[in-house]
Structures are given as C-alpha cells and as structure tokens.
C-alpha cells in the first residue's frame, strides 16, 4: 500500500492520525471514580467527571482519546481503520502516550487518558502494549488521573486482569446488537469473543467489591432507591466466577482498586437494520446481566463503501441516536424499562416527541399529578421533571405547599410539565387532558429542535447554478485548463 510507505516521524503527525482514528469512539466521560490527589503524584479523579472542552461537533472532550495504533488485522466493514482501507497508519510508543497524557493533564486540557487500539499483529500483543503504557503511566509518571482503556477481545485473561488494576474504566464494544449484524459486518469477531472479556471484568469488579465489604453490583444513582421496579432492582443476582488463583496472585495490594468506574460499551446505530426496540432491549440486558455502567450509542457515519453498508451519502441518524440516549436515561434514572417505552408492535421511537412525553401521552389516566402529594416515582414520570427537580420538590414541600411560582423559584421548568401537573388541585392554565390536544401542544414546543437535529444539512447558502438549474457554458480558459489537466 502506498500510504504505509509514508513514515510518520513527528509526535504531532502521529497525534493527528491517531486522534482522528479514535474520534468515532463515543465514550468520553471521566466520571465514576473518586480519588484524592497525593503529594509527589499528579492528578485526582472527580466522581462527577469534568469536561474540558467541546469539539466542533459539540461533543465533549474530557479525556485524551487516542488509539495506540491504527494498524489492524481485522476488516470490519464499518470501520475506518479496517485492513483493506488505504489510509495513513501510525503507532505510538508507550512512552509517547505517557508524555502526552501527563503534559496535557498539567495544562488542564484533559482529565485523563482514553486508550484504544487497532489490532497489531494479534490481540495478545496489542493488549500487552496497552498494558505497558498504563503501567508506565501509573508507576513511572505517578499519574493518578482517570484512565479508560479498551479491552481487546481475544487477549489473554491474565493481561486483562492486570490492566484492570491500573484503569478506572474498561470497555469492550458490542458494536451491533444482534449476532447476525455482527457476523455480516465484522467477520473477524464473534459475540462470544466480545462477551468473554465483559463477563470476566464484571466478575472481577464483583469480587473486588465483595472483598471490600460492598455489594457486588455497582452503586447506581441514589434516586433508584425510591423507584420500585427499576431495571437494576429486577436484575437477577450476578453470576460471579470463582476467584481464581491467577487473580489472587495478580492483585497488587489490599487498597488497590479494580475498574472502580465500571465497564461500558458502545453500539452503532443505523449501520444495520436493527430497530430501536432491539437496541434498547440489548442495552437493558447489558445493564442487568453484565452490570455495565454505561451503554453508548454511536450514530453511524458512512466512511466506507460496501454493498452491505448504507450508501455513503446517507445522513447521519443523529435524531435516532438522541432518542436512544433519552431512553437510556429513562432506564437508569427514571425507573422505566425498555418494554414500557417500546414494543415489537411499535419498535421505533416517535420522531416528534421524546420518549417520556410519548409514554405520558399513552398513559393519560395517571395525569394530572398533584405536585404536593405525588411520590418520587410518579413525579419522575411527568415530562419536564427530572431527577434534580423531583428532589427539590420533595425537599421544598416538607416546609409548606408549593404553587406554580414556587416551582419556578426552585428551578422546575414548566414548559412541558405544566400540561401534566396540578398545584393545590389546580392546573396552571385551563388545559384539557386530552391526547390530541396535548400532542399538538407538545410537538409544537419541540418542533424546531427536532427538525434541526433530523435535518442537519438543511440550512445552506443558495447556489445560483445548482438551485436555479442554470448552466454556465465553459469558457475558453476552462477548456484549455481541462486539456492541460489543471482543474
């Protein structure tokens, strides 16, 4: 290949190539770990996470997201770094990764490192290189910031275990929710191969937590304690593998932590024919059976041409991705389950309404809700009332009844909520609780944002020639230039 002849020497060139290759990975959070700084070391971890910048696409930049290498032995159809693409390749040395992380961290550019990689030579070798980078960073560079590392499916379980003691979060990308999808688009990968490290790490986290006297499941947001029937409560007990002699031997010291911020994964939206129902059911199963901390969704950006993939000019399904995130939040913070939001008969989200509004309109019998009396879980079912607002309402009503002005003062946004609540038995305006009317009102409120998200390329400058079908005849110079080959 012509491109691989070009050798990248400077750090800046490598960084550009390997950041560019990593940008389709969604996870950029630095949350879930709480670790104080220490004299002589660099860095801490802040449990809520810190975003440090926002890129031109509006996505947050929290950690230095790079690949160790973008060379790959696999040929996954959707991936930019697949073997068959003619593309500049580069590989960092572990020392370069450390320098970049530490120096960026000191300038407050980032919260830590996100390290992923294409598969160089074989999975075991790649994982070893990643482990080496992390080991150097933690021991030689005394780095105490956040580290998110990808597990490479197919790597040796021992090296994965060792990496777990150095990282805050680990993740393995499920990529596609169904077996068939994965087989068609990622010929080198299988479901078992991907699920094996997920299971291993989940088991490791569970055992480590047990040994610290905690429950094997990760802590979820405190609001879930007030939500009967939330998805985490309904999950069965985790199957923990017997802690092996191998794991016991590796464990560095008693106060070491093992993937304290939990595991995450990512699914591609829109590359295959799976519907929202399948995606959301898969997420729910991952939360329940693998105790994942997060599932990320990545709207498919067409990069490669292939008969099995959507056309290259297919718009990026941003609105669909947005709806999936909204539903994902409803699962984790609002006590909803996937079956309540979607069903095989209605497998996709409403384009015009967010999933919670959509649900509320199908359950008008429980509305309006009296703000001064309703329980947490009922308050959270009201469109427009979130976890923070619900907590403030419950706090404030202990010392007096709330009216609509009071709600505004404590920061509850009434834009949507006003259609679904009463204060002291009265609604804000005289509004009929009627499906058609409410649908009209609510879609009107959101029409603009929804439209913009679904049609990102709608606003552009008019072009006289393209839009008015005018044809400018080529001039003599044009003809000359064409002949000489300069365009």
């Amino acid at each position, binding site marked *: 290949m012509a491109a691989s002849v070009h050798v990248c020497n400077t750090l800046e060139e490598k960084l550009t190539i390997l950041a560019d290759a990593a940008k389709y990975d969604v996870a950029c959070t630095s949350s879930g770990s709480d670790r104080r700084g220490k004299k002589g070391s660099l860095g801490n971890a802040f449990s809520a996470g810190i975003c440090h910048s926002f890129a031109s696409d509006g996505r947050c930049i929290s950690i230095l997201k790079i690949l160790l290498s973008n060379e790959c032995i696999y040929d996954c159809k959707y991936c930019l770094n697949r073997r068959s693409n003619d593309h500049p390749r580069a590989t960092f040395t572990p020392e370069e990764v450390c320098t970049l992380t530490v120096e*960026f961290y000191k300038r407050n550019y980032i919260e830590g490192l996100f390290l992923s990689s294409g598969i160089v030579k074989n999975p075991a070798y790649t994982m070893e290189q990643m482990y080496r980078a992390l080991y150097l960073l933690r021991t030689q560079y005394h780095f105490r910031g956040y580290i998110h590392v990808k597990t490479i499916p197919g790597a040796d379980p021992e090296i994965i275990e060792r990496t777990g003691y150095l990282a805050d979060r680990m993740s393995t990308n499920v990529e596609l929710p169904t077996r068939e999808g994965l087989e068609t688009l990622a010929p080198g990968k299988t479901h078992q191969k991907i699920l094996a490290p997920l299971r291993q790490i989940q088991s490791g986290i569970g055992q480590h937590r047990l040994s610290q006297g905690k429950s094997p499941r990760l802590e979820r947001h405190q609001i879930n304690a007030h939500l009967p029937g939330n998805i985490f409560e309904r999950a069965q007990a985790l199957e923990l593998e017997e802690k092996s002699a191998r794991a016991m031997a590796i464990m560095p010291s008693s106060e070491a932590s093992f993937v304290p911020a939990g595991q995450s994964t990512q699914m591609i939206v829109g590359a295959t024919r799976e519907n929202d129902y399948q995606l959301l059911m898969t997420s729910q199963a991952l939360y329940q059976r693998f105790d994942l901390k997060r599932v990320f969704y990545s709207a498919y950006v067409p990069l490669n041409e292939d008969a099995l993939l959507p056309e290259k000019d297919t718009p990026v399904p941003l609105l669909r991705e947005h709806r999936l995130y909204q539903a994902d939040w409803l699962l984790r913070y609002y006590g909803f389950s996937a079956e309540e939001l979607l069903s095989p008969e209605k497998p996709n989200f409403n384009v015009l309404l967010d999933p919670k509004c959509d649900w509320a309109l199908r359950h008008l019998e429980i509305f309006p809700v009296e703000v001064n009396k309703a329980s947490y879980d009922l308050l959270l079912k009201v469109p427009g009332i979130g976890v923070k607002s619900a907590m403030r309402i419950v706090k404030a009503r202990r010392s007096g009844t709330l009216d609509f002005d009071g709600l505004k003062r404590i920061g509850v946004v009434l834009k949507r909520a006003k259609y679904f609540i009463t204060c002291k038995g009265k609604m804000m305006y005289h509004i009929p609780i009627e499906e058609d009317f409410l649908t009209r009102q609510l879609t009107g409120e959101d029409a603009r944002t929804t439209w913009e998200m679904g049609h990102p390329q709608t606003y552009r400058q008019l072009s006289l020639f393209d839009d008015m079908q005018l044809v400018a005849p080529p001039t003599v110079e044009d003809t000359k230039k064409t002949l000489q080959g300069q365009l």
Partner: protein
Amino acid sequence: MVIFTCADDFEAMLTCIYDAWAARLGHHNIRLALEPVEEMELFASYRSIPADPAKAEKVAASIKKKISPAAFRMVYGAALHESREKLDAIYRFLVYGFHFGAKVLDMLGEPVVSKVFSLQRKVQNETHFFREFTRFSLVPPQIYFAQIEPKCQVLPLLAPHFVDRMPSEYWIIADKRRRVAAVHPKDEEFYLTSLTDEELTQMEAAREGADPFVSLWKSFFAAIGIEQRRNARCQRNMLPLWYRKHMTEFQ
C-alpha cells in the same frame, strides 16, 4: 431607613451583618449594601462598617452552630457573587435561618431562601466551568500559569481543586478582572495575593510561544471533531463564547 454599607469582601460583609443586627433597629427598618454606593437615597442615613475580624468570626461561628455548616457554605458561596444585592439577600436569609435553624435550607419555596440559593448556585456553576476551562501554559523554567476573567469571584473555590490535582507543581492562576492571583508553590498550600499590571504583562510576555504542547493540543482538538456531525450551535451551548477568551484551543 438606615443603610449599612461595607466593602465587597467576606470579612467586611460578616462584620456589617453583625453591626446591622446589633443596632436593633428592626429588620424592616434597615438595609445592607455594598460600597461604593452608586445612588444615595434622600431619606436614609448611611453607616459605613469597616471589617473587624473578631465580629466576623462571631457571625461565622453562630451560622455554623445555630443553622448548620452547610448554611455557612451557602452564605460563603453567595458572598462571592458579582451581584450588588447579595449582602442584603444574605442578611434576609440569616433572619430566617436563625429563626428556623438547619431546616431553612430545605425551604426553597421561600423567596429569601431561593434567592441566596440561586446566588450560590451561580457561583458554584461558574466555579465548575473554570475547573473545566482554565488553561495553564508553561512559563520557563517550570511554572504553570493560567489567566481567567470570571464574573463571580471564583478563585477561592477554584484553587483548592487544583491543589488536589497538581500538589507537586508550581502553578499560578490569575484573575485578570480583579487583579488577584492564587499562587501554589510546589508541595505547599496555596495563597491569594494581589497582582500588579506589570507582573501580569511580564507573565504574559514570558509564556508567549514558550510551550511546545500548545500546538499539539490544537491539532488534537482539530482532529477529534467529526466533520459529518459539525454543530456549532451545540458547541456554543456547551461552551459559550464568553469562556473561550483564554482557552488555548481557541486562540
């Protein structure tokens, strides 16, 4: 109407609250305001209160004891706000606080409580923005220097975060608007100090072009955005232009 005035600094404000309370004129007959008073009122007398550490200490102790330590943190947060009305708002809040005790913090439906709550929330939010968006650059030999221009006085809340984050580095954060700097020598506690114009320009000149990682960061920042998802409006929502003034990647 008697109006008690004091300088915009926490100790002076607590002293002012002490004297206003001790004057026993009735809460409705007094007001508290910050100096300089912009428009004097005709039918009011003004009393300027100088800072007194002993009185301030008493007020601080009784807020912590009679209301709660959380209430003290809230008052301290509100006192860092840029608003001119914060002092009076804090006084009204304390009247409620000393009457109701610790549960006053939950009474968010009350206008006097929600006022102080929203003042301190603004300060906390802005502090968090600067946790995110403060940018250091290397000044030879080995000092990390940052400049900020916050609306509220966030430096006292911001500096402890960076002390924990970089305990063994020499760093300085300068609040350009107030000419105050937080200075943190290696392995020591930080301190706040005032800053002259010359010192500021000197630091600015010294860091010019000295940091090799600036261009690396810029190219990373450019590479990480996905062109097909370009969305300047979302970017502006998350990171308002106002904060970009001293950010490396936007310079």
